[in-house]
């Protein structure tokens, strides 16, 4: 009962808004080519483990022409300001060992290509699923002898964006079998669990109602292939867990913490729903 009445409400407001403002909505068939050379897959067949969608679409396809254009050239993409900041930090020695990222890894282009596409992934040594943030902090604490960065801190958001850049255009290919399976199942359970006073699960908005409007917001599938992503709203990069927290808070729930096992599990599941889309990070969204 609850689900159907919710759908009706969302559907109505969508219709009202569509009548109100007509054009300017993005076309799912627009092509995203960055810098005239990186061709992105923004729409493709859903992976088998995504049972209730036939097509998966990048969040880019839901945005207005103007927002889309911000991402089509690196000079126009304000996220690159923060990538440049991270590049400076990549080359700066920190901590008791006197090492920088570059001391071991050379340039991000040499050493990080493809990494973002398979994140998060099972770390055999740690016996758990690790995200980019965990790898960065492991390096900082154990190899550099530096302090860990906060999960959603500015340097961490910027660094994860820099590490993502060399993987742009590569298909997201997150492993969900083997030892990661249990974490993935936990993430899936969270995805379909309603939270908060509004009793909304991730699926209510991003699976049942993607392409509809929730008030004036054009709902996407909530894909994370563009994260960390620059939002026009706050004019900075936003982390995956930061976005999860915002969504859960919008259901009027106590949220999980960024970096928590729950959010790592949710990240693995949500990332796997985008298997086949291109890594776009750092993308631009509203």
């Amino acid at each position: 009962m609850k689900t159907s009445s919710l759908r009706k409400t969302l559907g109505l407001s969508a219709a009202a808004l569509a009548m109100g403002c007509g054009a300017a909505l993005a076309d799912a068939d627009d092509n995203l080519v960055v810098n005239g050379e990186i061709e992105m897959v923004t729409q493709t067949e859903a992976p088998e483990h995504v049972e209730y969608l036939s097509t998966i679409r990048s969040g880019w396809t839901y945005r207005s022409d103007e927002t889309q254009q911000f991402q089509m050239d690196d000079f126009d993409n304000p996220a690159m300001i923060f990538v440049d900041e991270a590049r400076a930090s990549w080359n700066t020695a920190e901590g008791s060992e006197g090492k920088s990222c570059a001391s071991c890894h050379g340039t991000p282009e040499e050493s990080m290509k493809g990494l973002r596409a398979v994140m998060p992934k099972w770390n055999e040594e740690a016996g758990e699923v690790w995200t980019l943030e965990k790898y960065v902090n492991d390096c900082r604490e154990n190899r550099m002898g530096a302090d860990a960065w906060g999960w959603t801190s500015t340097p961490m958001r910027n660094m994860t964006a820099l590490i993502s850049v060399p993987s742009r255009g590569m298909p997201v290919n997150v492993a969900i079998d083997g030892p990661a399976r249990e974490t993935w199942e936990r993430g899936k359970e969270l995805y379909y669990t309603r939270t908060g006073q509004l009793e909304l699960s991730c699926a209510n908005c991003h699976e049942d109602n993607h392409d509809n409007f929730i008030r004036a917001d054009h709902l996407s599938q909530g894909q994370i292939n563009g994260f960390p992503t620059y939002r026009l709203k706050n004019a900075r990069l936003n982390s995956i867990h930061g976005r999860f927290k915002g969504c859960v808070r919008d259901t009027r729930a106590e949220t999980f913490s960024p970096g928590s096992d729950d959010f790592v599990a949710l990240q693995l599941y949500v990332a796997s729903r985008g298997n086949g889309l291109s890594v776009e990070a750092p993308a631009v969204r509203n």
Partner: protein
Amino acid sequence: MEFTRRGALAVGAGAVAASVLPSFAFASVDDAVAAFTGGAELGEGGLTLTTPEIAENGNTVPVSVDAPGAEAVMLLAAGNPSPDVCTFNFGPMAGAQSASTRIRLAGTQDVVAIAKMSDGSFVRASNEVKVTIGGCGG
């Protein structure tokens, strides 16, 4: 009187507020235009103002002006707490009298451009931009 941001936005946003604080925002648009034109009459044509019909966020709205032969183009946001946005002054090495930038809009409102042409005349163009107030804070 105390003039808060919220109050200022409300003035931009609607007629209800305007009846409380009569035509504050509109008067200052007129002032800004008068300061730029010296009170000269405003014509039309020869100035193209390009804005999105709907801005997904008011923080970063791309706008362009194109006024072949103009000396300067002033941009105003009629519904902002302060309507001034910027003035482009074109020098002798300008390849065209056109420019693009990204601006802040406090809500749905008219964006106004005034061009000062080389013969000393002024032309005006304006577009309404609808600014989406979304529910998903994130």
